[in-house]
């Protein structure tokens, strides 16, 4: 030995000792750089195409009144613009103005003169025919030959 120093030999039990420092094990780590984004782009593209094809952008000509649940029907026709007469709890509304049953004919005649050719009735499905009937009479008197009942298109029953 150089300089007269003795070098201690490593103990053969050192590795098995619990006090011995162990090297950290390699754990699984997510390598972000290797994440393939192509399937995600594909899925997004399919979703965009599906939404573009299957959803309609047509705006309804009127807002469905809060608290009014329209009945469902399958053999419907497309809604067009016209005078919307809303019936809420037995009270009639045209253009958000409360109209009494007596004044219905007068108001509808005025609307007819303004070239609003269609009469659209929007009523809750639980209403009775008692409140619908005056509208039909007033519509006939005012000169509307067709009354359109607003419904929600039900695709399931087709």
């Amino acid at each position, binding site marked *: 030995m150089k300089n007269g120093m003795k070098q201690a030999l490593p103990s053969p039990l050192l590795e098995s000792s619990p006090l011995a420092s162990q090297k950290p094990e390699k754990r699984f780590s997510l390598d972000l750089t290797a994440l393939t*984004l*192509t399937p*995600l*782009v594909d899925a*997004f*593209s399919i*979703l*965009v195409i599906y*939404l*573009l094809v299957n*959803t*309609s*952008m*047509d*705006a*309804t000509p*009127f807002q*469905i009144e809060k608290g009014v649940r*329209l*009945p*469902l*029907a*399958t*053999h*419907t*026709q*497309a*809604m*067009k613009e016209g005078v919307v007469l809303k019936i809420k709890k037995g009270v009639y509304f045209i253009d958000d103005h409360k109209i009494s049953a007596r004044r219905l004919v007068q108001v509808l005649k005025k609307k007819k003169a303004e070239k609003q050719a269609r009469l*659209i009735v929007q*009523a*809750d*499905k*639980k*209403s*009775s*025919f*008692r409140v*619908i*009937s*005056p509208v*039909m*009479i007033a*519509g*006939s008197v005012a*000169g*509307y*030959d*067709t*009354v*359109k*009942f*607003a*419904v*929600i*298109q039900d695709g399931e029953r087709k």
Partner: protein
Amino acid sequence: MKGTFELNLMPIISLLAVCISFLLLTAVWIQVGSLDVSQAVGTEAKSAPKKTLWLQLNDLNQVDVQVKSARTTRSYKVKRKKLSKKAFLKKLSRSVKGLVKKNAIQTAFILPGAQLPYEDLIHLMDELKGMGIKDLGIAPL
């Protein structure tokens, strides 16, 4: 010399995500349609009257069905008995469908009672439209 490159997909993903959000927010999910009813306005019809179907109902316990022609009137009654509303409407629909086919009816009138729910009236109208009735009328009270 070999060169490797990788297309940056993050802007494309962002763009598509914005598109999806926009489409989801602006799409109209509830489709509103209409059921049309012809009202008697104008002069009397000059053509020979064909067979017509008349349905009279006060509530959904019994429906009086009539097939009227220029000379004859045939009456039928469809009773609910202990059927549920849905089952009765199906039964009524079947009965009326047979009459409509047999008599080649294209015009129908409904005479609803004051208490008849609007939902049931619309259901009946919808069924009649589905049977091929072209002219549908409702008699007011």
